[in-house]
C-alpha cells in the first residue's frame, strides 16, 4: 500500500501580482533595506566607535530615501502590471523588490566586488520572492505587516534620536549659569583647507582676502601660525580640547575620546550659549565628538537630496549619476548611469557641503533666537575644499577659472566675502565691538609640492601646516599688530576659554592673549604637528609608511616618518623644503633637540608609541 502523497503546492509563478501588491512590496523592501542600514550604522558608531557619516536623524532620513528609491522602481512596474493585465506573477515582483533590498543591504559591505554583490542580492531576492509567492495570501499579509511596523518604528526612532538635539536647546540654555556682565561674544571662523600662502593677507599676489586685509588693521595677525594636524578631524579636535591630535584620538576611522573636556563645555560653565555651524559634516560633524558641550550644533543638512544620499543605492557611482543627472546641464550623467553601470559605493558618505553664506545665515538665525546671553559660535567653511566649487561666480574670478588652483583661490575669496558680511552684520547690530572674532584654518592644501597634488592629510609639509590666524578683539588684542614668531593652533582652546573668563589651566595649552599682549610667543606651546597613518593610501602618500610627527622652531622644521626616516629643513630660507639637512653634522644636533621636544610635548619617550592610527 502506498503512502498518501503530500499535496502539491500551487506553482508560485501562477499567482498574478495586483497593483496594491506592487506598492506594498516596494514599501516593505524599502523598510527592510533601511532597517539593515540603520542597524549597521548604529552598531558601527555606538558599539565600535566607527564613523558612519550620517545625520543624527538617520533612521527616518534613510527610510525616506529608501522609500523614494523603491517607489521610483515601483512606478514602471505598476504600469506594466496595469498594461499586461495581471500577467506578471507575484513571484517576479516580490523577487525584484527583495533582490533590490538585499542588494542595497549587501552594498554596506564594501569588501565584495559590486557584481558579486549584485549576484548575491538577486539570489536572495529569488528565494525570498519564491517564499512570499508560495502562499500568496499569507506572504502578502506578512509583507504588509513589515511595511507598516517598519515605517512607524523607523520614523519614530529617527525623530526620537533627533528630538533632544532639535528641541532641547531652550532647556540647555535655561540651565546655564548667569554669565559675567563683561563676557564678550566669541566667533571662531574656520576656513577649511585654506593655506596662508594663498591669502593676500600673507602676501599672495592675487587679492584673495581683501576683507581680511582690511580687518588686519583692526586686529592682531599671526604671521606664522601652524596647525597641529594636516586635516580636519584631528585639527578641530585639538582646537576644541587643547590636547595634541594623538591625545585627542580622532582619526580617519573614529571619533576623539569622549572623556576630554571641550571648549564649549568650559564656556557653558561660564554662562555661554554655544553654536556650531559646520560645512564639513564628515570630519567636523557631531560624530567626531567636538559637538560635545555645544547648546546648538548644525552639521548635516535636511533635504530630499540628503534623504536619497542616505541610501546605499544613491552612494553607488550609478546612483550618484542618476541623482546628479536631474540637475540642469548634467543630463549626460543619466545616460552614463544607465549605459555604464557602476555599483562601486563612494567610501566617504559625506553630505554636500553648505556654502559659507548658508552657514553664516544659520548662525545669525541662531544668534537671534538665543537672546542677550553671550555666545561662542564656531563656523566652518568648506568652499575652498575639494572639489573646489565656490558659488556665485567666484570660481572664475581668477584667471577665468582655468586651473584647479584658480577655483581654490576663488573659494578663499568667496569665504573672505562672507566673513565681510558677518563683520558688517555684527556691526549693524551694534555688537561687533563686544565680539571677539578669530579667523583661522584647520589645515592647508598641497598643490604639487613634493609631488603631492591637490591633497591634504598625507604629510606634514609647510603647505599643510602654515595657516592663517587673525584675532580681532577690541580692547584686548592690539590693532594692526603682526606677530612674526611661531605659534600652534593647539593654543586656540586655551585662548577661547581665557576669553570666556576661565582661569589658566582650565584646558591644556597657553592662551594666545599672552602673545598679543606682549608680542612675544616664547611662553606658548611648542609647535608640534602629527599626521595619522593613512587608510587606503596612494603610493605617494608619506603617511602610507605610518604616522608622522613633526615640530618647528624659529629656524628648523623636523619631520619623523612612520618608517623611522627623518627630515630637517631650514624652513625660513628653504621655503619649498627641498634640502634635507637631517644627516649633516649641524642637523644631527637639531634632530636630537626636536625628538626631545616632541617627546616632552606628547609626554612620551622616543619614538612616541602608536595610539591607533597615530
Amino acid at each position, binding site marked *: 500500500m502506498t503512502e498518501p502523497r503530500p499535496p502539491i503546492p500551487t506553482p508560485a509563478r501562477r499567482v498574478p501580482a495586483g497593483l496594491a501588491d506592487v506598492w506594498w512590496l516596494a514599501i516593505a523592501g524599502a523598510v527592510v533595506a533601511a532597517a539593515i542600514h540603520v542597524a549597521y550604522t548604529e552598531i558601527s558608531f555606538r558599539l565600535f566607535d566607527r564613523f558612519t557619516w550620517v545625520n543624527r536623524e538617520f533612521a527616518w532620513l534613510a527610510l525616506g530615501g529608501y522609500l523614494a528609491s523603491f517607489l521610483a522602481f515601483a512606478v514602471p512596474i505598476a504600469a506594466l502590471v496595469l498594461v499586461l493585465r495581471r500577467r506578471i506573477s507575484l513571484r517576479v515582483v516580490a523577487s525584484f523588490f527583495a533582490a533590490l533590498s538585499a542588494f542595497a543591504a*549587501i552594498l554596506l*559591505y564594501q*569588501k*565584495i*566586488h559590486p*557584481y*558579486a*554583490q*549584485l*549576484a*548575491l*542580492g*538577486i*539570489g*536572495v531576492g*529569488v*528565494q525570498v520572492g519564491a517564499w512570499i509567492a508560495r502562499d500568496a495570501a499569507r506572504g502578502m499579509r506578512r509583507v504588509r505587516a513589515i511595511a507598516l511596523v517598519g515605517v512607524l518604528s523607523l520614523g519614530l526612532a529617527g525623530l526620537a534620536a533627533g528630538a533632544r538635539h532639535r528641541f532641547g536647546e531652550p532647556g540647555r540654555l535655561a540651565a546655564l549659569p548667569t554669565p559675567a556682565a563683561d563676557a564678550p561674544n566669541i566667533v571662531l571662523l574656520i576656513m577649511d583647507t585654506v593655506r596662508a600662502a594663498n591669502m593676500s593677507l600673507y602676501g599672495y599676489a592675487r587679492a584673495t582676502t581683501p576683507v581680511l586685509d582690511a580687518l588686519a588693521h583692526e586686529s592682531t595677525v599671526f604671521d606664522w601660525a601652524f596647525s597641529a594636524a594636516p586635516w580636519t578631524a584631528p585639527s578641530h579636535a585639538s582646537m576644541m580640547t587643547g590636547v595634541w591630535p594623538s591625545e585627542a584620538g580622532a582619526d580617519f576611522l573614529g571619533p576623539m575620546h569622549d572623556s576630554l573636556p571641550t571648549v564649549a563645555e568650559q564656556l557653558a560653565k561660564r554662562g555661554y550659549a554655544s553654536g556650531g555651524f559646520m560645512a564639513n559634516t564628515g570630519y567636523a560633524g557631531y560624530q567626531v565628538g567636538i559637538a560635545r558641550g555645544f547648546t546648538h550644533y548644525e552639521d548635516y543638512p535636511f533635504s530630499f537630496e540628503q534623504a536619497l544620499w542616505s541610501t546605499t543605492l544613491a552612494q553607488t557611482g550609478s546612483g550618484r549619476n542618476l541623482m546628479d543627472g536631474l540637475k540642469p546641464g548634467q543630463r549626460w550623467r543619466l545616460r552614463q548611469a544607465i549605459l555604464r553601470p557602476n555599483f*562601486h559605493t563612494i567610501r566617504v558618505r559625506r553630505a554636500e557641503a553648505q556654502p559659507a553664506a548658508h552657514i553664516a545665515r544659520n548662525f545669525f538665525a541662531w544668534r537671534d533666537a538665543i537672546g542677550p546671553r553671550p555666545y561662542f559660535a564656531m563656523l566652518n567653511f568648506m568652499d575652498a575644499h575639494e572639489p573646489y566649487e565656490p558659488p556665485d561666480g567666484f570660481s572664475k574670478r581668477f584667471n577665468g577659472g582655468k586651473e584647479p588652483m584658480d577655483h581654490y583661490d576663488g573659494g578663499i575669496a568667496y569665504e573672505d566675502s562672507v566673513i565681510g558680511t558677518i563683520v558688517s552684520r555684527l556691526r549693524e547690530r551694534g555688537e561687533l565691538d563686544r565680539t571677539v572674532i578669530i579667523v583661522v584654518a584647520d589645515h592647508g592644501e598641497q598643490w604639487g609640492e613634493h609631488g603631492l597634488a591637490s591633497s591634504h592629510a598625507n604629510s606634514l609639509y609647510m603647505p599643510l601646516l602654515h595657516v592663517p590666524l587673525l584675532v580681532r578683539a577690541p580692547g584686548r588684542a592690539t590693532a594692526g599688530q603682526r606677530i612674526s614668531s611661531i605659534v600652534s593652533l593647539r593654543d586656540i582652546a586655551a585662548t577661547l576659554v581665557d576669553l570666556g573668563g576661565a582661569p589658566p589651566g582650565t584646558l591644556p595649552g597657553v592662551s594666545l592673549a599672552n602673545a598679543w599682549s606682549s608680542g612675544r610667543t616664547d611662553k606658548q606651546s611648542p609647535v608640534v604637528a602629527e599626521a595619522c597613518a593613512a587608510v*587606503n*593610501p*596612494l*603610493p605617494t602618500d608619506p603617511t602610507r609608511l605610518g604616522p608622522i610627527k613633526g615640530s618647528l622652531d624659529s629656524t628648523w622644521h623636523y619631520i619623523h616618518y612612520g618608517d623611522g626616516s627623518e627630515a630637517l629643513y631650514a624652513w625660513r630660507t628653504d621655503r619649498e623644503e627641498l634640502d634635507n639637512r637631517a644627516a649633516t653634522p649641524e642637523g644631527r644636533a637639531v634632530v636630537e633637540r626636536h625628538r626631545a621636544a616632541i617627546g616632552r610635548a606628547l609626554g612620551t619617550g622616543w619614538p612616541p608609541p602608536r595610539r591607533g592610527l597615530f
Partner: protein
Amino acid sequence: MYIGPDSLMPLASVFAAIAGFFLMFWRRVVGAVKLIASKFSTKH
C-alpha cells in the same frame, strides 16, 4: 602599479558570487544533482 583594496577581488567576492548563483538557480541545481545522482544510483 598600485594594488590596494579597491583593485583586489577578495575571496569573499568569489564566495558571494557562488552563493548568489546557487540561490538564483537553486531548483535547477538541486534538480540536476538529483538527476545525476539517480543515474549513478543502483536500481533495486
